[in-house]
């Protein structure tokens, strides 16, 4: 084992001593840093030791962290000095009991006026500090916690009231600043235990209330919240099936034999874990299966087992086959178009976990613990990997979108010809003319589309309405759906009619549906409508823009002869009688007028 590995092992061990951690950190920091980061510490307690643990967790993510200590209880001055040192990340740890000397003990005797003034002071100071620090990349703000205990067994006393009030104040002041991430320090204390978190000796001598245990947990949470100081961003959880989603082996124990009952051990653990996985899926995490099994067996469990929590619709990609797992994981990453380093892989087998760790070290591999009662703790860690950095509302429910795409890719590999593949999509296109209910969407699409946009002429809602009402114009809109779902209104054609000519004023489509023949399927309908209006010719123009090169030859592909080319445009014209757009038998077109 290299000394680096030995040092990393020390950092990973929960019971390494302070001396060991310091030695290991110092040794590992001698190596050339892959990434480095500076963090400022600002606190109204002595928190110098937090620096060591931030450096430790940085090293575990391959990042060298330099710590800059602020002054005691000087958030505004600290921000100034960090700014001038070019520091972009900061941990702020206000401390309740030092707001005034032994603040917690004084509380009962303080007047409401004085307390209100103190709260205002906290608000003002921190608001000013936040304001000055608004260009920091990130600020980790520890909420207040209490140092002492409530004598009242209900936990409610003067301190708990003030604690809640001051925390509310901090949260309110922080809310205006999106670079602030609040860390619930009461939960840090709860997690490590009050006795383990504090050392009263050094609090009273040097205002250093915390132990290394507390700082280690706090630093671990900062690392989680920053996704390993910006080194990872996990998106996909790949699950084994047997002894991971249920107890037992479906191929041997069969439907009746696998363990998944919410009322019996160990089924209750697997059942609970499935709820956790399902919750991750609802938060936008993509779930996949990678299992050595017969697909039919696993499908049967998903479809028919009465206690299954995960539904087939919650799984984006299934790799249930007898291939080795690294191969399956590679294929899976390709289908989803994500990097292997955004995958977390969970399996109960040491053999499989080792194979993946060795061949795909960028995948985060986690083994289901042999002691099943430890499984919930392991899954909590998995949840943190995905969720500790926060989730944006629009990333929720990504599964459906990705599943549609992945399904298309899977199908694509199964069909020899592109046309057979397209036919299997069961595409339906609904073409509407002057559909007043869609004016807003039509205008939006004309404003937003850049790539598939033949003239880049944009139309406001009012203009769309005007065109729809005009006897000499028509606005066609098309909606696409296939066996995987609806893509909605994704294409618009603006037509003008004059002197026996049907002129395509613009044609634009959303990129979501390009490449499946939709763009050519609509034209026989549009040209027959033009003929019925008494037009004899169809004309079109392509105006190049910075972004629409992909449709530079669209009208050629549609079968319109090029009549003139200038620097600014290409012109096309055909007699309606001779215009025959390419056939798209795989698309079912409905014209709704």
């Amino acid at each position: 084992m290299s000394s680096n590995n030995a040092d990393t092992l020390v950092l990973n061990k929960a019971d390494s001593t302070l001396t060991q951690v310091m030695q290991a950190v110092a040794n590992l920091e001698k190596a050339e840093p892959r990434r480095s980061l500076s963090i400022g510490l600002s606190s109204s307690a002595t928190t110098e030791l937090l620096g060591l643990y931030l450096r430790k967790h940085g090293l575990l993510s391959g990042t060298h962290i330099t710590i800059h200590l602020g002054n005691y209880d000087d958030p505004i001055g600290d921000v100034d000095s960090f700014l001038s040192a070019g520091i972009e990340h900061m941990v702020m740890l206000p401390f309740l009991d030092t707001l005034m000397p032994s603040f917690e003990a004084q509380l009962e005797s303080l007047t409401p006026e004085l307390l209100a003034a103190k709260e205002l002071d906290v608000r003002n100071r921190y608001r000013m500090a936040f304001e000055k620090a608004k260009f920091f990349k990130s600020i980790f703000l520890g909420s207040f916690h209490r140092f002492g205990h409530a004598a009242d067994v209900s936990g409610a006393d003067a301190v708990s009231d003030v604690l809640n009030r001051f925390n509310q104040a901090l949260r309110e002041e922080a809310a205006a600043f999106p670079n602030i991430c609040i860390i619930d320090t009461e939960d840090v204390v709860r997690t490590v235990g009050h006795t383990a978190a504090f050392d009263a000796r050094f609090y009273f001598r040097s205002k250093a209330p915390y132990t290394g245990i507390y700082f280690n947990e706090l630093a671990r949470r900062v690392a989680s919240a920053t996704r390993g100081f910006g080194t990872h961003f996990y998106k996909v959880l790949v699950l084994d099936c047997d002894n991971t989603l249920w107890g037992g082996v479906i191929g041997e124990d069969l439907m009746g034999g696998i363990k998944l009952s919410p009322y019996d051990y160990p089924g209750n653990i697997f059942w609970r874990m499935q709820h956790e996985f399902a919750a991750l899926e609802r938060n936008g995490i993509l779930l996949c299966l990678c299992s050595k099994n017969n697909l039919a067996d696993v499908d049967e469990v998903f479809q028919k087992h009465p206690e299954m929590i995960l539904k087939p619709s919650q799984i984006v990609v299934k790799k249930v086959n007898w291939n080795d797992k690294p191969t399956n994981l590679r294929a899976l990453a390709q289908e989803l178009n994500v990097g292997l380093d955004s995958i977390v892989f969970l399996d109960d087998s040491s053999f499989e976990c080792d194979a993946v760790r060795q061949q795909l070290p960028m995948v985060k591999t986690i083994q289901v613990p042999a002691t099943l009662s430890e499984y919930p703790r392991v899954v909590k860690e998995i949840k943190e990997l995905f969720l500790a950095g926060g989730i944006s509302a629009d990333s929720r429910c990504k599964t459906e979108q990705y599943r549609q795409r992945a399904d298309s890719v899977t199908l694509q590999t199964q069909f020899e010809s592109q046309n057979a593949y397209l036919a299997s999509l069961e595409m339906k296109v609904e073409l509407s003319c002057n559909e007043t209910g869609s004016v807003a969407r039509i205008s939006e699409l004309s404003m937003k589309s850049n790539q598939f946009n033949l003239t880049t002429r944009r139309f406001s809602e009012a203009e769309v309405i005007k065109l729809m009402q005009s006897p000499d114009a028509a606005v066609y809109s098309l909606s696409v759906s296939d066996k995987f779902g609806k893509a909605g209104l994704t294409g618009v054609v603006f037509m003008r009619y004059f002197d026996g000519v049907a002129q395509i004023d613009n044609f634009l489509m959303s990129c979501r549906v390009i490449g499946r023949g939709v763009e050519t399927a609509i034209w026989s309908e549009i040209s027959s409508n033009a003929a019925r209006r008494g037009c004899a010719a169809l004309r079109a123009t392509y105006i190049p823009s910075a972004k629409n090169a992909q449709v530079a030859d669209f009208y050629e592909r549609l079968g319109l002869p090029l009549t003139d080319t200038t620097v600014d445009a290409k012109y096309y014209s055909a007699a309606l009688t001779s215009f025959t757009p390419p056939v798209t038998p795989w698309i079912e077109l409905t014209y709704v007028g």
Partner: protein
Amino acid sequence: MLDENTLKQVMATLLTVDITAIDSEASMDTIATWDSLRHMNLVLALEEEFKVSIPDEDAGNITSYKLIMLVLEELLQAK
């Protein structure tokens, strides 16, 4: 018996000096990096390493190698 090598190693690590700097005369006065912040961490590290609990009244005062030896030996004998 107190393992002096271990003691020197802990002190050197915590005070970020070479182990040769920790001799019998080492104290807060002779070692520039030995400030009150490092001293707290040193006490915590000594407690952890030797599995003792250094009483409050001693914790702040053991600011030399000799004093640390003295207190640790007493605590270890009492175990």
